[in-house]
């Protein structure tokens, strides 16, 4: 079994990598790059060479290409000490035309060509566009840059090697004093007297690497973080994993004592402090509160995260589905072809045949008539507003479960063991609930991990119709805004969930039914 599982997991990892590769090819190679400018006002307003340069710069930001402007390369050379600062300022600006370059500049331009062309880049030089003989047209300044399409293999390797990052004491770039980790039993955030173990780092990205607080699961860590993919448009600069898991809603303020001793009512979560170089000196506000450059804090909010909302709704819906569908399915199969079976069948046909959008709107209209809230409001969260999204999600899965349970139970009813049980004098109730159900439920058990993990993904239509701030619309939103990093990240997340739930389903099934064995060779 273990050997089989390891093999399965390896296969799954392989297929996840291939999925990510396919998605990368789809979005980076097949999709038209020009589309990202369709709704970009900056692009429309720019003209001439500036438009071209902007285009390449944006492509780099979206992850399509590697783009190096000439001045940046020169600045890099100066930073690494290969040329002096005077040389840099002498050669950094190029002439309006190649002929007009000064001899020194021409030398470095030639080097630039040589350096990048030997590395497979294409170098482009745009001569200045002149409005008059002396005046450069608007946005018509001369440009020189090198660019290269990122190869798929490099992109994939970079993505998966950067997937998990472990915080280390060499993260901070500036002067932070003595780098190292300290363990304390009395967390300074709580005033240094209360017993609260924490690991505090200096030189790391996060100040608190391990800490405790009153929120579930009480012990938190910032040491290992997952990088699914950075957003460029929807949630600029923020990783998808963070977008999905950061709480939303209104600020929750409490009395916070900052490291300087300054105390005020604030929503800042000091445990989330992150390093930003030179940030303490940047403003008086941070100088008053912090003693070091660990000033970037997340605020405490009242709501759940995107995944949180999706999961709460999804998990209650699937629980409800199993609790209701199992007895209903049993009743339907027991009274096959009777009235109750027919009513159940009509319901199943309705759910299966009618487009999901239509019945969700129908539920919404019915809920509206009953006086239930039809939109989700994070600020004034009540339990009542969860009802409609949960019902909308549960009713179709009830139909689906009922359909299969009825089918499997009816198939089992003619089995020999049922006839034997009946001849042995068992009551119908006993036969149905103890013998037939046990056998008929095995295929349904396979789906339990999928429905639990699937709750994390969220539901696109339901969340949209009821304005739930869940994770369901992440992918569609990312696609609409060409947020390539997010698309890749969300796809990976979905793929991992689906692969895991299939494996867990198989394991669970073989645990429940000893007849099922995955280790034997015979199929």
């Amino acid at each position: 079994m273990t050997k089989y599982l390891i093999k399965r997991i390896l296969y799954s990892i392989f297929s996840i990598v291939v999925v990510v590769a396919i998605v990368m090819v789809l979005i980076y190679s097949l999709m038209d790059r020009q589309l990202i400018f369709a709704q970009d006002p900056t692009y429309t307003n720019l003209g001439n060479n500036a438009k071209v340069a902007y285009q390449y710069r944006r492509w780099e930001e979206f992850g399509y290409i590697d783009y190096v402007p000439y001045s940046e390369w020169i600045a890099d050379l100066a930073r690494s000490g290969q040329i002096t600062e005077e040389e840099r300022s002498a050669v950094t600006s190029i002439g309006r035309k190649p002929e007009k370059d000064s001899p020194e500049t021409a030398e470095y331009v030639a080097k630039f060509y040589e350096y990048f062309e030997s590395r497979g880049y294409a170098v482009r030089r745009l001569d200045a566009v002149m409005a008059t003989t002396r005046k450069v047209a608007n946005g018509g300044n001369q440009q020189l840059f090198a660019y290269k399409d990122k190869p798929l293999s490099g992109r994939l390797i970079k993505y998966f090697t950067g997937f998990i990052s472990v915080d280390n004491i060499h993260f901070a770039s500036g002067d932070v004093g003595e780098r190292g980790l300290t363990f304390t039993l009395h967390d300074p955030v709580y005033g240094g007297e209360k017993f609260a173990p924490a690991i505090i780092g200096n030189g790391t990205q996060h100040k608190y690497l391990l800490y405790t607080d009153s929120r579930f699961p009480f012990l938190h860590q910032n040491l290992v973080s997952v990088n699914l993919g950075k957003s460029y448009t929807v949630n600029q600069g923020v990783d998808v994993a963070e977008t999905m898991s950061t709480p939303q809603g209104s600020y929750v303020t409490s009395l916070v004592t900052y490291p300087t001793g300054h105390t005020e009512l604030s929503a800042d979560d000091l445990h989330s402090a992150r390093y930003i170089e030179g940030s303490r000196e940047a403003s008086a506000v941070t100088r008053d509160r912090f003693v070091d450059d660990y000033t970037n804090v997340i605020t405490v909010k009242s709501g759940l995260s995107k995944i949180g909302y999706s999961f709460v709704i999804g998990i209650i819906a699937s629980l409800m589905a199993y609790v209701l569908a199992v007895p209903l399915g049993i009743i339907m199969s027991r009274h096959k072809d009777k009235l109750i079976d027919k009513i159940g069948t009509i319901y199943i046909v309705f759910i299966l045949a009618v487009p999901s959008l239509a019945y969700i709107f129908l539920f919404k209209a019915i809920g509206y008539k009953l006086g239930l809230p039809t939109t989700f409001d994070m600020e004034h969260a009540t339990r009542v507003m969860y009802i409609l999204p949960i019902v909308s999600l549960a009713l179709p899965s009830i139909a689906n479960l009922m359909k299969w349970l009825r089918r499997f139970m009816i198939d089992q009813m003619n089995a020999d063991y049922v006839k034997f049980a009946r001849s042995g004098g068992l009551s119908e109730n006993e036969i149905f609930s103890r013998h037939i159900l046990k056998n008929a439920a095995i295929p349904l058990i396979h789906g339990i991990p999928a429905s639990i993990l699937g709750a994390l993904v969220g539901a696109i239509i339901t969340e949209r119709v009821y304005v739930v701030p869940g994770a369901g619309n992440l992918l569609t939103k990312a696609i609409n805004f060409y947020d390539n990093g997010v698309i890749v990240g969300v796809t990976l997340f979905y793929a991992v969930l689906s692969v895991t739930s299939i494996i867990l389903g198989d394991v669970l099934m073989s645990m429940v039914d000893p007849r099922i064995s995955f280790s034997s060779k015979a199929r």
Partner: protein
Amino acid sequence: MSEMNKSLVDLSDLGLSEEELFSHVDHSKQESEKITAPRYSYWRSVFRVFFRKRINIVILALFALILAFTYIYPVVTDYNPYANLMNASAKHLLPSKAMAMFGRNIHWILGAGASGQSTFDAVWYGSRISITMAFICAAINMTVGIVVGAIWGFSKKVDAVMTQVYNIIGNVPYILFISVLVLIFSAGFWTMVFALTVTGWIAIAYFIRTQVVIIRDREYNLASRCLGTPIFRIAMKNILPFMTSVIVTLAATEIPSYISYEVFLSYIGMGMSDMSLGRLIYQAENAMLTPGWQFEFWSPVVVASIITTVLYVVGQNLGDASDPRTHM
């Protein structure tokens, strides 16, 4: 004894000679091979069973009516969605008001929409696109799926490869495939068909493969193989007839599912540019809770539901009827 004799006819009463009553029949080897049984035609039996249920006739009539409205009605009527665009008083009208304004005819029985167009006409023009798309997609996916699924089920080598392909393709979000294709090509009708069929067949193929695997190793096929029947003939004559009902049932769920899917895609903003049913629903979403505008929203929703339900029920019942075990 006497009672038994009463029921028998006494031959001497008939007044015929023995030669006239009996004639000698030669034994024929050919004749003795004939089996006398009622003539059985598979498809005739299917339809006999199908029409035995009266409800099926009603549903089929409804189906014919829908097809007439989707394919004949748009041909005979002249529909211009922008005819009343400049007329501000013609927009968002209830049926009664629209009929008062434009006269009592069939066009206005569902009122007028956001640009003063007839909702009734818009719905049928939309369903023509949606239903045509569903039929084309189902035809392509079913054909490719069944052929590939049959090969997949028979060959163990193909099985190993295809199972991995299935695992991979199944994990690429469907929306992503479709939206990328819609972005590469324009969001037209054929792009949508291509997007729905480029990976859509694999689920059907997988389903067929499972069915083939179940039937493949049954005793009658083993016997058939031992007698030297070629694989192709086994597939066509032994296995395919067995799966007719499965295939018909599958088609019954497939065709409505494309309509539902198109509605879903339009709703999340990734549908096609043509005015399909899904796009009508998407555009009229705001009208749902606006008093007096509900007809614009519910008409396409209800028509889409009726179409999918009718297709589903017809298909399911045809699937039941095409199972030879119900023919007795």
